[in-house]
């Protein structure tokens, strides 16, 4: 099982996703998110943010981001990641995996061991998206570390 990291950026929007990660459409493999960082690199200001991670059954249309293997000897991942969506992912209603309210100045980090990770299935184009239903129009970043089975 190899480990990968990917950074997803976007000017936060209440209607547009920050980014998405999920299984490839033709060679799907399971993925496990075990380390997640959420924050904003914009100039410090007091704005409320609600970050939501939600399951999706289609990854939408986005600018592709290539996850980097943490061990350079590992092969490239089969997982697909994207940011700056022009077509939003198809989110599964109520399938919210994590939600956290933050001030813009704050940074959130979550790590998990086996049994507590966020897992997406080896089903074509299924994955997990990051959205900001409460936000201000400043740049936010999500860094995701995941393992691929």
């Amino acid at each position, binding site marked *: 099982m190899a480990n990968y990291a990917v950074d997803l950026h976007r000017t936060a929007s209440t209607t547009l996703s920050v980014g998405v990660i999920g299984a490839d459409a033709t060679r799907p493999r399971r993925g496990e998110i075990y380390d997640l960082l959420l924050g904003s690199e914009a100039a410090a200001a007091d704005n409320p943010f609600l970050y939501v991670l939600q399951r999706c059954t289609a990854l939408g249309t986005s600018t592709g981001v290539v996850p980097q293997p943490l061990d350079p000897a590992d092969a490239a991942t089969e997982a697909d990641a994207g940011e700056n969506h022009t077509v939003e992912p198809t989110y599964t209603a109520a399938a919210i995996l994590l939600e956290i*309210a*933050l001030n813009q100045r*704050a*940074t959130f980090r979550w790590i998990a061991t086996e049994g507590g990770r966020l897992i997406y*299935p*080896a089903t074509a184009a299924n994955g997990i998206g990051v959205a900001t239903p409460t936000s201000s129009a400043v740049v936010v970043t999500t860094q995701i570390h995941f393992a691929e089975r």
Partner: protein
Amino acid sequence: MRSATGYAQVVDPDRPLVERDTIGCGHCGRVIFVKPDTASTVYLVLNRQALRWHEEPGAFCRVCMRPVCLACDAHGRCLPWERQFEMSEARDRLCRAVGL
């Protein structure tokens, strides 16, 4: 009861460090924030309107013997995430095998 399988941290320059233990829902995989020193029997639930936390009694499935989130507990049936994934992946393999 179950020990935490995750840990969350909020670093805010204007406030004290916030640390939370988390567990995963045995049915949907959701990250559940738990109150410290309660053996995961008290959940911390975010109120989306007020953007504040409040405490709720935890939930435990006695079929799969795992803690579950309050939404899955309200649903009232046991379908562990492993089984859901197996069904989803089997359906996907069948669709690709027949060229859909």
